[in-house]
């Protein structure tokens, strides 16, 4: 080491560089904490009010530092819980029979497998195929199939009403409608094997759709002309967002019947189907979810308390 460097190294020790660290500075007093307003519903900002007329996106919600206020966190968690609960709910084994529907079952054997193996959810298990062959009416114009899909909650909710309205609409048009049935652990393409087995002209599967935040009760319908194993998405027409706040079952059933009628007339479905001039609303197109007002999900206290607050 150089002469001067050694000198400075010693001086540094002398000047206390190696002494123990001084104690940390004293802690400040805790300031009087700001009070947050939960559970009192916060007044929405003017921006949020104006935006709500155009979008259901949660905007104008403010911030705490760079994070959410507590009531926003709870609303979000409640919406997430509703979606997860809808996915996690399974259709009871005996639900179809109890509701007078022919019970069908895909090749899926567990809920986890249902999520991971869409291929198995597209095919009937042996017992269901035998039951279908034995009990279902064959050679029909329309074969509706109620199914759980990604929301058994939706299936058990508006499912029966949609099936009944759709059946009535079809029969009113003079078409023969197949045996009412309900499939468990079913994916959309299951309608191909079912429709092929009963030799239907049009198969229509009505099933729970993938839940969104705060919603788990939506149904979708997929229709295909001359169903057979090997049909693809391009062969189908669909309608989504069927529930009380979107397209209610009665209105949806009417539009689905119009769609089925077009298939019977034109003897095709999917991309080649000409939809011009049909009163379909959302049916037959890309099928987006129309804006629906977000509802406040979380209130502290019991339900009566909530009503008081809403009036106030």
């Amino acid at each position, binding site marked *: 080491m150089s002469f001067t460097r050694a000198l400075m190294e010693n001086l540094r020790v002398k000047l206390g560089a190696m002494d123990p660290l001084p104690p940390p500075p004293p802690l400040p007093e805790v300031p009087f904490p700001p009070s947050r307003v939960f559970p009192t519903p916060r007044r929405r900002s003017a921006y949020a009010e104006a*935006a709500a007329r155009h979008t259901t996106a949660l905007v104008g919600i403010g911030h705490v530092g*760079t994070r959410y206020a507590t009531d926003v966190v709870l609303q979000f968690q409640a919406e997430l819980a509703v*979606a997860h609960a809808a996915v996690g709910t399974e259709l009871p084994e005996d639900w179809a029979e109890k509701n007078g529907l022919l019970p069908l079952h895909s090749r899926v054997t567990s809920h986890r497998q249902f999520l991971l193996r869409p291929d198995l959810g597209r095919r009937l298990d042996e017992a269901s195929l035998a039951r279908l062959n034995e009990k279902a009416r064959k050679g029909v114009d329309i074969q509706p199939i109620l199914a759980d899909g990604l929301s058994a909650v939706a299936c058990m909710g508006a499912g029966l009403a949609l099936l009944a309205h759709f059946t009535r609409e079809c029969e009113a048009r003079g078409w023969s409608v197949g045996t009412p049935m309900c499939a468990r652990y079913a994916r959309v393409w299951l309608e191909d094997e079912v429709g092929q087995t009963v030799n239907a002209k049009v198969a229509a599967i009505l099933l729970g759709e993938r839940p969104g935040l705060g919603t788990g009760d939506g149904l979708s319908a997929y229709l295909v002309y001359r169903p057979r194993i090997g049909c693809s998405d391009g062969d189908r027409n669909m309608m989504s967002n069927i529930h009380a706040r979107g397209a209610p079952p009665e209105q949806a059933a009417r539009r689905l019947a119009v769609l089925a009628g077009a298939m019977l007339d034109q003897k095709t479905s999917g991309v080649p189907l000409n939809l011009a001039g049909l009163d379909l609303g959302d049916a037959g197109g*890309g099928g987006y979810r129309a804006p629906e007002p977000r509802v406040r999900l979380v209130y502290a206290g019991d339900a009566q308390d909530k009503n008081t607050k809403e009036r106030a």
Partner: protein
Amino acid sequence: MNLSASIRGVGYRFTSVTEVLAKANPPKSGDDLAGISARDAVERVAARAVLADITLAELRAHPVVPHEIDELSRMVESTLDEGAYSAVKHLSVGQFREWLLEPSTTGPTLRALAPGLTPEMVAAACKLMSNLDLMTVGAKCEVVVRANNTLGLPGRLSSRLQPNHPTDDIDGILYTTREGLSYGCGDAVIGVNPATDTPESTAQILTRLHDVRVRNNIPTQHCVLSHVTVQMKALDLGCPMDLMFQSLSGSQKGNKAFGISIALIDEAHAKMKAMTSNRGPNFMYFETGQGSALSSDAHHGADQVTLEARCYGFARRYKPFLVNTVVGFIGPEYLEDGPQITRAGLEDHFMGKLMGLPMGCDACFTYHARMSQDELECLKVLLGAAGCTYLMSLPVGDDIMLNYQSTSFHDIPSVRRLLGKRPTPEFDAWLNEMGIMDGLKPGERFGDPSVLK
């Protein structure tokens, strides 16, 4: 080429490079669905041992989809930078992994190497790496691109503002856009996934977003993510378009299912080059995601990580301004849960960066995948620490059209502050001028959308 290994005296023999690549992959439900994954953890390690000894030259000679049936394989082969390739071709995948991790292998070296790597080489290295390995190398790679601002500089974290609306209500889109900007989001792009895929609607949204950008003098880009053919028609309608978008797949067959080919993207790129409203030189925007090839039965027996890398081999042809992997959107049949989605996000970022792309990530889950909100927040921090170029941003992370959960307006400034990262320099200056940010801290007008005209 050796395709066998033994572990504790038990021999494992594989029949092809494609099989080795697939079985060396960490567990992914999509590989299980395709029936190509390792049968257990020990076989997976045996495949990795074999892979570690295969050279990069051997990987070049064995693309997972043969040249004869795939234009992507042919394009990668014919456009490979032979100079860069010859520097590393003799390395085994195991040696390549170690070389990537060496501190003396710097960002500029990796950038120079990128055009000499095939997707299979990059995917192979990925399979021998842990999550922290992927982050270590990913953070070294520097990919800087320019449009109306400069993306990918060190110490920066950008975001796409994604103001989607289920019916393309333009006022709804603009309310969400202003909200996002007031949280410091949107420096990568303001990009709308349209509900209606028509040239007229695309042009209308682009024009209105452009107005907001010009009126407020915002240094960023805008984009409507309709099909590339629709955007080309929208350009003909005379609308301003800063970035042109398309989803890519990792095989010719997969791209056919998306309605695209190399020739079509070449044509779109040329048209955009002539007509784009951004200052350039980068103006393309691509999205990818593990599992897309399998979902159109176009995987040719290859695993989803390797096919994802092949998307990047496609994307780099066009020197894009943005590439992002939409990592959890495809659903649990391809990425089952939090650990798989996390792993995939870090893999895709690493592979994209190593191939020279400005890689962003849509860290997200659908509500039927088993990932918690807390796990998703962790992934955003991991990606930020790994040097991810940009994340998405939506109100509370909720896409009200596509029904999935991604990064929120609030998450972007939170992650930036936590990691000491800033937006692009131009956007950073704008945010400070507007009072939205005060350096890394929220400014006086933070979260106040009325600051925007």
